[in-house]
């Protein structure tokens, strides 16, 4: 695709923020089709639908776009894994079950710019030769569900969806499905089970969704942000897109900053931006209190301390530094925060969200949560710290899906990097941050 004037232009490297996905968020009534079209919306679709689907898959491969759901798998490659078209239909399933602690990128995107997602869905469905697309949105997200539903309705009315889209003969239906509020349904196979009406629990792989996904038909499952990135890649072209980010992690990314910064929120910047830069954008640390620890990609990845502020936040550099980019949910804790207390809260989350299918995760998350509660209420022992570390070790890589790994990672990395805080707490050097009464009703 040739460069398009609608593609936002930046002085890459000079402009710290690169609002590609977020550019219309501040526009009035940005969620309406007319607003979206005024900003060039659905232009990418008009371009894409004149191309051969295979060309679009190749384009996506060249763009280097990597999945924004956390694993960072190359998107074009995923599309190309579908088996040859056979008797079974192909499906596109968009994962909008955003639930990772600290992660809040898909929700505002669906609120502010649902048509961007819908346009991405149409282009992607066309590219993978699918005629049926499901957008699966976490059940609690009532407003985003309504926004996306009305966007889909508007798109049907405008002829972007339904039969014979834009007169090309291409048909597509989109269904917006509300989940029932389970973190596990962000795991792609659990999401598919849930869509099919079964319990939201992960399934064995193989078969992978590309071969047997929704209703045992070839299925591509992509994150909301991934799909929303597609239209701008079509409009701007590969060269434009690759101007952002690094060679192996091209493009822009919505970084979700939360915690002890002056202006928490969503900051879209090229991959490779550092936390130090992002904290500056967010107005610095709250009240000037220095940072103690942070998560580069949500609660499921190893913690970083204040020594990693200059790690470029892209898939490879974060991995090389000992963590994972995950969902780029940057939870920032200053020197007043207690590591054991934060970890205990995360552990409660994983205990609550463990689906129950496999023993290590089901039993291990509950065990860790109970032990951490004892520690933060001043009833822990030194032995507990070793048991916790060993329990996390025994869950990691043994659970059925990545939920258990995430649950184990926050605990093990916290103990590994901040062991003394745990020791001080169980030996009474620092006071317990909570009382048992605090924990009542804490779900």
């Amino acid at each position: 695709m040739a460069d398009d004037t609608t593609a936002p232009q930046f002085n890459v490297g000079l402009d710290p923020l690169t609002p590609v996905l977020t550019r219309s968020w501040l526009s009035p009534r940005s969620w309406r089709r007319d607003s979206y079209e005024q900003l060039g919306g659905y232009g990418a679709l008009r371009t894409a639908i004149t191309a051969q689907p295979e060309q679009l898959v190749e384009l996506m491969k060249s763009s280097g776009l990597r999945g924004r759901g956390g694993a960072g798998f190359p998107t074009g490659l995923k599309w190309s894994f579908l088996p040859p078209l056979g008797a079974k239909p192909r499906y596109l399933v968009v994962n909008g079950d955003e639930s990772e602690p600290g992660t809040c990128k898909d929700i505002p995107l669906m609120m502010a710019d649902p048509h961007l997602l819908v346009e991405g869905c149409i282009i992607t469905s066309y590219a993978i030769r699918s005629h049926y697309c499901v957008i699966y949105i976490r059940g609690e997200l009532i407003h985003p569900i309504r926004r996306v539903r009305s966007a889909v309705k508007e798109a049907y009315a405008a002829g972007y969806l339904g039969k014979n889209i834009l007169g090309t003969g291409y048909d597509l239906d989109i269904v917006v499905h509300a989940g029932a509020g389970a973190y596990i349904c962000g795991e792609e196979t659990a999401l598919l089970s849930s869509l099919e009406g079964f319990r939201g629990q992960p399934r064995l792989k193989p078969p992978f969704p590309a071969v047997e996904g929704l209703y045992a038909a070839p299925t591509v499952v992509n994150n909301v942000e991934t799909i929303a990135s597609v239209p701008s890649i079509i409009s701007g072209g590969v060269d434009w897109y690759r101007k952002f980010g690094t060679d192996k992690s091209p493009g822009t990314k919505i970084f979700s900053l939360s915690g002890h910064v002056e202006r928490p929120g969503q900051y879209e910047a090229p991959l490779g931006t550092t936390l130090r830069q992002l904290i500056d954008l967010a107005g610095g640390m709250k009240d000037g209190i220095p940072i103690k620890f942070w998560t580069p990609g949500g609660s499921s990845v190893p913690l970083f301390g204040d020594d990693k502020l200059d790690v470029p936040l892209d898939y490879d550099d974060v991995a090389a530094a000992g963590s994972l980019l995950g969902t780029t949910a940057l939870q920032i804790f200053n020197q007043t925060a207690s590591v054991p207390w934060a970890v205990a809260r995360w552990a409660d989350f994983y205990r609550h969200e463990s689906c129950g299918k496999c023993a290590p995760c089901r039993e291990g998350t509950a065990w860790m949560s109970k032990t951490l509660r004892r520690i933060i209420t001043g009833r822990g022992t030194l032995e507990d710290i070793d048991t916790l570390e060993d329990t996390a070790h025994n869950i990691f890589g043994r659970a059925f899906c990545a939920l258990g790994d995430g649950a184990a990672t926050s605990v093990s990395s916290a103990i590994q990097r901040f062991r003394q805080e745990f020791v001080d707490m169980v030996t009474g050097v620092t006071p317990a941050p909570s009382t048992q009464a605090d924990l009542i009703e804490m779900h």
Partner: protein
Amino acid sequence: MTATLPATETPAILGPAWDADAPAPDGYVKFVIDGQDVIAPKGEMVIRTCERMGIEITRFCDHPLLEPIAACRQCLVEMEMGGRKMPKPQPACAVAVADGLVVHTQRTSEVAARAQWANVEFILTNHPLDCPMCDKGGECPLQNQDLAHGPGESRFKEAKRTFVKPIAISTEILLDRDRCILCYRCTRFSEEIAGDPFIDMLGRGVRQQVGTGPEVPFQSYFSGNTIQICPVGALTSTAYRFRSRAFDLKSAPTICELCSAGCELRTDHRSGKILRRYAGENGDVNEEWNCDKGRFAFRYVTADDRLRTPLVRGANGSLAPASWTDAMTAAAAGLAKAKAAGGVGVLAGGRLTVTDAYAYGKFARVALGTNDVDFRARVHSAEELDFLARRVVGVSPKTGGVTYRGLEAAKHVLLVALEPEEECPIVFLRLRKAARRHGTQVTAVAPYASYGLHKMGGVLIPAAPGAENAAVAALAGADDPAGLRTDGAVILVGERAAEVPGLLTAVGELADETGARLAWVPRRAGERGALDAGATPTLLPGGRAVTDAAARAQVENAWGTAIPETPGRDTAGILAAAAAGELGGLLIGGVELDDLPDPAAARRAVANAGFVVSLELRPSEVTDLADVVLPVAAAPEKAGAYLDWEGRVRPFNTALKWAGGLDDARVLDTLGVEMDVDLYTQTPKSATEDLARLGAYEIPRTRTASYPPTAATPAAADGALTLASWRLLLDGSRAEDGEPHLAGTRRPASARMSPATADRLGLADGALVALSGRAGSVTLPLVVTDMVDGVVWAPGRIAGASLAAQTGARAGDGVTVAAAAPGATAAVDPDVVASEAEGRIGSVVTGMGGSK
């Protein structure tokens, strides 16, 4: 290095002679386990290969007959592929073997050993460890694997998850959720094998639990299997709970006596009482499953009213206990007198072992000089005997007959007059497996698509009773609607085909025409054996026709007696002759008069017979009318063999060794001695030898008579409907006596008819209706359902009595159905009431959770 392993049915592991550099044969892969080269069939899971190599890998959720789920994470091992170690340990139960795979089990991998050790610790964190009071204690996979591979001591100091316990998920199955380790075996069994997914996981995380839907109990004919495959004591039966310790039980392998499936069972007993029965393993027959009737219906064996001593009717007209000597003398004298006064008819019943049936047939010929012997205590016909002689007798897996495995391999199976789930449940399980795993197409000729047919994904060819002939004949068409011309296609025909004149002939012709293989599936365990052992009026042992002089001579030589050359009377003929006073007496084995086509007429016949000898387990209508009652051993108290529907010999030994009962063959042998003849059936062994002395015989498969089909029975009068009926698996038969918890899992009795028929009669779904025949009526709730018009279906036994006894009508007869009189109540099943009195389904069971 190469592995030497026990031989299996496939050359899965090659021995030392194998050339290590040679590639794996077609259909096999070559890989390495713990440094040993192994060859395994494609598609096999690594854990199976390890098993065959003698490497024990701990597991909870894995079950060879269930699809892998990898939920418990207990079987983790390390794997390498293409020289690269997989980053995480992999579940051996869910990874298929592959060329070039390298597996390191806990024997060679510290990571695997540690993962398995740690996982036991996880599973134990919330397990109550109430082993001292748990039914599973002493035979518990969790207990065993923890002690062998687990930590023994737990580091878990927190409060354990608790649940109120137990809950009754049916009247027979109790669930202790705190013991459950959430392995999904029971839920997978219910969904994958039985097709009754009435239990499922509820909730999530550490509060996840097995449960039922509100007000929907775990009503499955196969529910007991979940107890057996539960790797902990979470599922227990009301029948066994808290009654014994596993290590106090004695176990005996047996064969189920309750239908023609021939299931391998394990009878666990203590102090002369059966405490429980488990399914045994036999890949050719029942795999590892059985039905709840076979599992739980054993209390009849030790029922309080078991006959333990002979009874002789005295001068005062009532039965009184007598010594064996006196009873034998009285029986022999009475039979001799009856023989002289018109002869004696022998009704052997369908529940006998092969040797017992042989003894009845031989006793009739040798001691009573008659061919008046028949094992069929149900609807029967001369056409049926001809069909059995031509196509069934002598057929077995060894002669190339249809087998369970043959059903599984068939692409098409046709069912005629057979509801496998009700009448031979293991055939149902195998057909469901075939349909599910291999896409076998099941087609049924029946008045409606039963629940069982739905679960097999079957196709219905609707046919009213009497109209089956035409429906079957239509299947012979060149368009082959039921796929019978495909390779390996099978027709299964049930004993009920004898209800419809011409149907067995039509089925035989259909098989001849299409080339499909044919098998006959009777309900009772003894029928196939009795047929082959010669307890019929037309056939001597081994399918030798009475009318065939050469065949008869073979038997006469061996037995040293002359055999009448004309066929004898069949069951109906014997009863008619007795009623008419033509016969001097009757010798009756295990026959319930209620099971006969016309119970009232049968009652009159037995009452009218001059002299009646009854061999029975417990008092019955026959013993009430008998002159001499001789107690016999129940199946678990004797040795013998059944022929299952395949014709497969299913031998078994005595389970309850000290019960002291005599089998029928022994009683008849002694009675023969009293009558100065020798049967040589003192023991099953001697009887088998005596049978073998008859020598080889080639059964001629010729037709002896023609049985033209008759037209469909027209509805008798205005508003009359044709009755369709069959027995349900659990319907209060005498074998189920004494087990009210099992009774609670019966399918409720109802009448069924089509919407058009109901409309015509002005009846609504759920209404109480009176179904009336010439002899009376029975009140049932109506189910309006998709089925052929003009037909009403009702179960063959309702609330303790047969439909025929209550209404005088049997399948194919005209009956009337009308709204029940105001204030009428549905026929009440006393056993079910008793089971319901013990607590509501789904509610928490208090106290000991059982009765008695």
